[in-house]
């Protein structure tokens, strides 16, 4: 556990030129309870602009609850969420979308009764300007969506639905894209594609907060990673360092260890 401090120091040395203002997202002591259950129990996260940061952890650790709090779906009992220097804690979801945060929810959640094109348009619901360029951009990332733009989203395959969910989340032109387990239930080849796209999106200037149970993939693309266990952050560090960490290997990368 003493490793935590080491990783932290390294990253802050690396980023020593950054000032407080250049944090994109800062979560301080976030606490969320459902009835008596403490789903998130005092976590703090820092994220600098332009990064891919990942939050890994087992089922029920509190990852989705964290993202849903940031998106304004859940009102946290305690703590602060600061985005680009502004305290957005308790804001309504639409104001948070306008501020530049969008979310690709767990299980994709495309609207099955809307066409592919309508799903993209509804991602830009709060925008009043022309959407043609953005739709073309999403089609360039996911050409399959263009072929199927007239189809109801409910008729797409799981991988296509995930692509649509990512595209839909991009339509609001977010600065921060939150993704909740994009690899869930997808074939390994499709997962690989999705992670390639995550990198591309990030290279195009969107910061990504990635929640994953697929720790192996997530740690490979992420610059910085947090490990969440039953509502607490138990470890943080650079992606590649956590990937090499023995305790992480044992707890989250079990299958990959033999490789």
């Amino acid at each position, binding site marked *: 556990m003493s490793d935590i401090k080491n990783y932290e120091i390294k990253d802050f040395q690396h980023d020593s030129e950054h000032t407080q203002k250049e944090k994109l997202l800062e979560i301080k002591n976030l606490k969320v309870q459902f009835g008596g259950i403490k789903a998130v129990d005092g976590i703090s996260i820092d994220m600098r602009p332009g990064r891919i940061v990942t939050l890994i952890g087992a089922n029920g650790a509190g990852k989705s609850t964290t993202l849903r709090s940031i998106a304004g779906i859940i009102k946290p009992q305690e703590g602060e969420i600061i985005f680009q220097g502004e305290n957005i804690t308790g804001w309504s979801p*639409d104001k948070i979308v306008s501020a530049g945060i969008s979310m690709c929810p767990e299980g994709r959640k495309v609207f099955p009764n809307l066409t592919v094109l309508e799903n993209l348009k509804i991602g830009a*619901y709060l925008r009043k300007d022309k959407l043609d360029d953005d739709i073309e951009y999403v089609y360039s990332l996911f050409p399959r969506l263009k072929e199927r733009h007239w189809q109801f989203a409910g008729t797409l395959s799981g991988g296509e639905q995930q692509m649509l969910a990512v595209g839909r989340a991009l339509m609001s032109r977010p600065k921060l894209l939150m993704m909740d387990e994009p690899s869930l239930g997808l074939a390994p080849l499709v997962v690989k594609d999705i992670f390639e796209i995550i990198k591309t999106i990030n290279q195009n200037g969107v910061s990504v907060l990635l929640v994953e149970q697929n720790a192996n993939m997530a740690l490979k693309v992420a610059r910085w990673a947090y490990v969440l266990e039953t509502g607490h952050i138990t470890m943080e560090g650079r992606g590649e360092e956590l990937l090499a960490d023995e305790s992480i290997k044992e707890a989250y990368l079990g299958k990959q260890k033999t490789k």
Partner: protein
Amino acid sequence: MNIMPYVIRGLATGGQFALVAIGYTMVYGILKLINFAHGDMFMVSGIMLIYMAGSTGAMPIFASIIIMVILTVILGYLIEKCAYAPLRTAPRMSSMISAIGVSYLLQNLVSYITGGLSKQYPEIPGLSTSVRFLGVKDKLSVFVSPVVAIVLMVVLVLVINHTKFGMSMRAVSKDFETSQLMGIKINRVISITFAIGAFLAAVGSLLYFSKNTGINHLAGSTPGIKAFIAAVVGGIGSIPGAVVGALIIGLVESLAKAFGLADFSDVISFALLIIILVFKPTGIFGEKVIDKV
């Protein structure tokens, strides 16, 4: 026997039920709630016109109609805000019970005001004029009812399928949380849905009560139940379904009268409901239940 007058009158009643049925089906579509207060709101809009322009009122009829429509829309909006919105995250059964509560509240409130007596509905100039069409002589309201219902249905379906607001309604009807993630204000969409339902009920009440002699606090029950049956027969959640269901029920009941079975018209409606649900449990236009993973 000339069947035509019965057909026309059946379609008229059907059109009037349809305007009420759309309210049931839209609210169900978005909240999965049977708004039991809907029929009573229909009755209240009738009573409001009576108090403004009827036997006890003195206002000009056309101004009264406009105010009645506006007040009914406000009532629909307030019912949602007071009785359903606070229960958004509660189990659905709680909202159903709240709906039954609102239904009794409206009935008792009106009964208190009217003393439980039947009140004479005002003559609506124009609607009460006699006209002859397709060899049938009847009030104008009889001929316009199905036309009004179908035109409003078409407009509504176009709005829902082809406008940004309609798209947000379709989204909210599937998934509240994801709709919020898109930036949709779901409470606003739900309020507007109730307002549209109330508007259609107000138009329906104008057409329905204009042929009636008098109405009391229970005058919303029968059309309310018939419209609800129509919505279920047509496939609850489907707007064209509600209209088709209502036209069928209106027609069947009227034909029952033609064959001297007037006393059995309620039995026939319910039998129709049961028969259709046995063969097609989701109703005529009902969605197939797609399990989405």
